[in-house]
């Protein structure tokens, strides 16, 4: 379980996953890691978040797992930033830049407030 008992006190485990670790994983690996983590009761903080198509795939994979016992995920990220170099502008291309993302079970993670620059959330044991 994701709970760690220190001196008899139950605590929630938070995994903070670096941009480098995420960059070394395929989309499928990231999604599996996130879903397994949430199912184990962990709160995951992704330093650089997921790309928009990965977010969509994560929602899709989450829906496949929905059951009376697993009700899905709470995911909060900031709106993606658009990153366009001069070459990108010339060719009309753009790259979305993923940003910090917090993911957990809806039973544990409650978002209180969210705007362009601030996510306020509460984390509970269960």
């Amino acid at each position, binding site marked *: 379980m994701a709970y760690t008992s220190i001196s008899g006190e139950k605590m929630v485990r938070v995994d903070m996953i670096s941009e480098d670790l995420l960059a070394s994983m395929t989309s499928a690996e990231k999604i599996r890691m996130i879903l397994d983590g949430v199912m184990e009761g962990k709160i995951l903080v992704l330093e650089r978040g997921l790309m928009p198509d990965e*977010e969509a795939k994560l929602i*899709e994979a*989450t*829906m496949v797992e929905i059951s009376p016992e697993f009700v899905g995920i709470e995911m909060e990220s900031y709106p*993606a930033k658009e990153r366009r170099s001069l070459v990108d502008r010339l060719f009309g291309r753009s790259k979305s830049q993923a940003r910090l993302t917090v993911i957990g079970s809806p039973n544990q993670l409650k978002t209180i407030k969210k705007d362009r620059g601030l996510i306020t959330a509460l984390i509970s044991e269960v």
Partner: protein
Amino acid sequence: MWSSLRGRFSLWVGKIFGRRSVKIGIYGPPNVGKTTLANRIIKDWSGEDVGVVSDIPHETRRVRRRKDVKINVDRSSIKLDIVDTPGLATKIDFRDFLSYGLEEEEAKKRAKEAAEGVIESIRWLDDLDGVLLVMDATEDPYTQVNITVIGNMEARRLPMLIVSNKIDLPTASPVKIIEAFPQHTVVPISALKGNNMDKLYDGIYEHFR
């Protein structure tokens, strides 16, 4: 990348020959009025209804497509395939449906169908020429669903119009949506009352022709 190129090429060919309908998906979280909007557009231009609406979340659990809806704007027109999609969500708990008076078995069935509907909605993103993203003007616009849909449309470089729905309600604040997503066009409407629909049709013509 490939689906984006294919979509843009297909839209471009359609424009040149002026024959093809533009496939527009109506997206958003549950209960923001997607089916009410689809019904309004289709009723305005063909006199028919598409889907049933209700206060219970996830009423629409299958994608519904209405082909060749011709919208006239000034002296021009645009032909649309309207794709009304089930509400997107990251969580679905059958217990939430119990408070609407559903029996447990019925609620579990609805949750399962709603999850399948979300998957279907996401898969449709690959086959669209553009999206009407519907937001509830009385709610916080920074939902994960909104952020994910906007991110996907921006990454695909496909046109999108944000529809700020339910402006007939006293607590509506379309300004919040405009401020949240300043890089996109936001059209405040009431799909239920038919307020500002002319502006929406102008926007549809401008964005998707």
